[in-house]
């Protein structure tokens, strides 16, 4: 019988996640000091800050709790506080929509978790997480419900829809926390419970497939986004997918007896969790600075900011390089570990499984390459070339604390990447991963060497002039390649996934349709899951509730008639039982 008795247990797993939460929170806190000031939130500043603290505390307590009851308790508090934080600008229309999505989805996840917990309790008679010993049937049912529950919170496709709505709507420091940390709490829950329950192979396959789908679809949807925060949100979906891929690999390998590879995959997944927390928060914070500076979230209206906000640009670049998994930064190392785990699948000895892994591998590779492409777009269009709007022209570098916060994370990105080998050595893992310290120093060394070499040997004369612009009189921002133009080839190639519908109509001067008069063309990208999954369900529920409403619409007579009918039924019941 539950009562408000909380008990906490911190083992290495939870300690790791608590570390993750705290590191990111520190940076975000530093960042928020100035960020909160900028926003026009009148009296809400204080509320934001206080709720932010509740939010962080609740996340730490969720991770630390050792009974399902306290887990749920703080989980609810986490959901509630984050919801209130999302609703900060509650007057905005989009915020309302975001809030609805987020509220419904988070409640849904609670439903699934609660069911799983009570189900387990009913079977085992204890809320203690460590004591989950139950029949395979129970654990399998529990696993499915836990997976859905945590999946919704982590935003794996198809339960992802709240992310791209909630993140743009909420203040950037909050999106940094939510996307950087909160969805990791869901990952923690999944890992924690799956590790404690007797695993089965199909769990691993389910996790792997879900992860793969989320990864590829997440990045593909990110490619077409021009709202920078929504783009980042979709990348969170992608990275959660990558994490799940690693975890799924762990389950599969562990059950196939390849313990070493399994450990590699698991550590890779966890390491990627940490890395994603770091660089995603970094990116969200810097994008928050951008939004503050340019008053828009559309990257089509930015551009040229590298000259106006050089430090922010540098920080964003570090984040972009890390999330694109380029050496020697941290994002690369964790993806490398997962890749290596994939490459070991030759030893599985189960052809069908191996083929599945290979397919997933190919998709994974595509994912990381597309991520790189997407961030070339994000950085290039946002920071490089000429400003695309007046606000962008007038943009100013953000205040110091809004740089220090991200800077901490940026340095962590580099450090975790370069010293990864040593760190794992200290932690007592010996993985066959390359020594990034060597590579990093080689890169820098050769960079400097080449620079010096050029200085000495090559011609020093440099000139800053106008380069050839296809014969235009003067370079202006209209001539630049736009974000949509940049992603157009990929969008066209992947049109079957985007469900792109191109409409074009032309009018001509003559009947032979030769002399073109005017025309317009539009590209409409279908919101597949929203239009095919979410809205239908919502509409169905709404229809049912309308029916129920109309049944009750009426005066006394109708309801007395209902009572009459019911009592007649009662007579039947009595007659039946008597």
């Amino acid at each position, binding site marked *: 019988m539950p009562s408000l008795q909380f008990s906490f247990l911190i083992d290495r797993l939870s300690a790791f996640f608590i570390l993750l939460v705290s590191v990111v929170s520190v940076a975000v806190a530093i960042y928020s000091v100035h960020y909160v000031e900028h926003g026009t939130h009148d009296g809400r500043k204080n509320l934001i800050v206080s709720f932010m603290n509740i939010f962080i505390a609740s996340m730490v307590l969720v991770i630390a709790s050792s009974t399902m009851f306290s887990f749920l308790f703080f989980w609810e508090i986490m959901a509630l506080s984050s919801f209130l934080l999302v609703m900060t600008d509650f007057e905005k229309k989009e915020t309302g929509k975001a809030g609805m999505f987020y509220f419904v989805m988070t409640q849904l996840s609670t439903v699934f978790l609660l069911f799983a917990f009570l189900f387990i309790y009913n079977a085992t008679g204890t809320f203690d997480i460590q004591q989950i010993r139950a029949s395979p049937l129970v654990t399998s049912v529990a696993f499915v419900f836990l997976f859905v529950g945590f999946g919704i919170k982590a935003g794996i496709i198809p339960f992802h829809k709240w992310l791209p709505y909630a993140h743009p709507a909420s203040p950037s420091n909050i999106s940094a926390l939510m996307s950087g940390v909160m969805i990791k709490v869901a990952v923690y829950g999944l890992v924690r419970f799956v590790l404690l329950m007797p695993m089965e192979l199909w769990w691993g396959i389910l996790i792997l497939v879900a992860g793969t789908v989320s990864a590829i679809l997440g990045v593909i949807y990110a490619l077409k986004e021009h709202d920078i925060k929504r783009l980042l949100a979709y990348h969170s979906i992608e990275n959660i997918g990558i994490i799940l891929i690693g975890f799924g690999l762990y389950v599969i390998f562990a059950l196939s007896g390849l313990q070493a590879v399994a450990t590699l995959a698991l550590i890779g997944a966890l390491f990627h969790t940490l890395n994603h927390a770091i660089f995603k928060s970094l990116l969200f914070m810097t994008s928050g600075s951008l939004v503050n500076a340019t008053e828009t979230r559309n990257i089509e209206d930015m551009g*040229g900011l*590298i000259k106006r906000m050089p430090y922010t640009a540098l920080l964003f670049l570090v984040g972009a*390089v890390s999330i694109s998994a*380029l*050496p020697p930064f941290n994002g*690369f190392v964790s993806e*490398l570990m997962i*890749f*290596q785990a*994939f*490459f070991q699948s030759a030893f599985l000895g189960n*052809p069908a499984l191996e*083929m599945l892994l*290979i397919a997933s*591998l*190919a998709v*994974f*590779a*595509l994912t990381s*390459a597309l991520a*790189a*492409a997407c961030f*070339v*777009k994000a*950085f*290039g269009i946002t920071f*490089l*070339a000429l400003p695309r709007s007046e606000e962008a022209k007038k943009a100013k570098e953000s205040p110091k604390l809004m740089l220090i916060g991200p800077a901490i994370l940026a340095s962590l990105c580099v450090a975790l990447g370069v010293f990864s080998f040593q760190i794992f050595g200290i932690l007592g893992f010996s993985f*066959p*991963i*390359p*020594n990034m310290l*060597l*590579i990093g120093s080689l*890169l*820098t060394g*050769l*960079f400097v*060497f080449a620079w010096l070499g*050029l200085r000495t040997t*090559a*011609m020093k004369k*440099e*000139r*800053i*002039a*106008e*380069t050839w*612009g*296809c014969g235009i009189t003067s370079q202006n*921002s209209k*001539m*630049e*390649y736009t974000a949509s*133009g940049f*992603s*157009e*080839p*990929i969008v066209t*190639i992947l049109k079957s996934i985007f469900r792109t519908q191109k409409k074009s109509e032309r009018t001509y001067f003559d009947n032979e349709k030769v002399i073109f008069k005017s025309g317009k063309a539009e590209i409409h990208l279908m919101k597949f899951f929203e239009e095919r999954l979410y809205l239908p369900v919502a509409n169905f529920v709404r229809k049912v509730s309308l029916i129920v409403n109309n049944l009750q619409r009426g005066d006394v007579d109708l309801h007395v008639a209902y009572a009459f009918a019911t009592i007649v039924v009662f007579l039947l019941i009595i007659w039946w039982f008597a």
Partner: protein
Amino acid sequence: MNITLLLYGLLNVLFVLFASPLFISLIKKVKAYAQKRKGPPLLQTYYNLAKLMKKETIYSENASWIMRITPLVNIAALLVASLFVPLIVIPQPTDLVGNVILFLYLLALAKFFMALSGLDAGSTFGGMGSSREMAISALIEPVIIVVFAALAFAFKTINIPDMFREALTSNVLVNPVLILISTSIFIVIIVESSRVPVDNPETHLELTMIHEAMILEQSGKNLAMMELSNAMKQLLLMGILINILFPWGLTTEFTATSILISVGAFLIKAVIVAVIIGLFESSCAKSRLFRLPGLFGLALFLSIVTLIIEVFA
């Protein structure tokens, strides 16, 4: 990290550095012959590089420091990458260098900055170039990964030198795996070194060019660096193909004779491959950008078939 390893590194890097431009112009020559032209001299690329080093560097007003660091990042990345692919001497086993994934991502790093520099000046060409380049490289990525996964399956290692050693001692790659995998790698080379039908390095026609468009804004020594790193990339990929398929002459011990032999052997093999590339290039036309997925699909299919064969055999 002992002395021989250091020696290996030095040797390999220098070899790549100095041998790579040769093959660029060699392929040009082959194509020229195919078109009944005389073509440039074999050392033309070296001349170009020397000339570019002597020219002044022009930056666009809109360009930022991205433009300035990109050539250096490229050359640095490629120099490091060239440590990973032993062309003439296979060092004794080591974890320090040779990780195939790291190798691929070093190339990706170079490409990432190249694409950024393409966008930097704000000219239309650059943006077009980097957009197409990223699209293509994204689409070829699965092929590359699966190919190397196939190699890793075959050789039970993810270390390039070890692969070569395996290939040298036991030739596991019997047909048909040989043909399949070589075809895939060949397509990869074509794509990565931006050649027809994917790209056309000769023209500066906006419809066709991709790689050239990206580095359009580069000039002087920076252009030289870009060209050089591109040549090195091509040579490294060729080297992988060569040393896996026919690793004959590849040596493992540091003696002057064996090194000379293997240098000769490698040059011969590389020339052959270059000729094949040239002939292939001149045999087919530049295809539309949106036709390319078909080609990549073919490559992916072949590599997956390779894997299937390895898995079920």
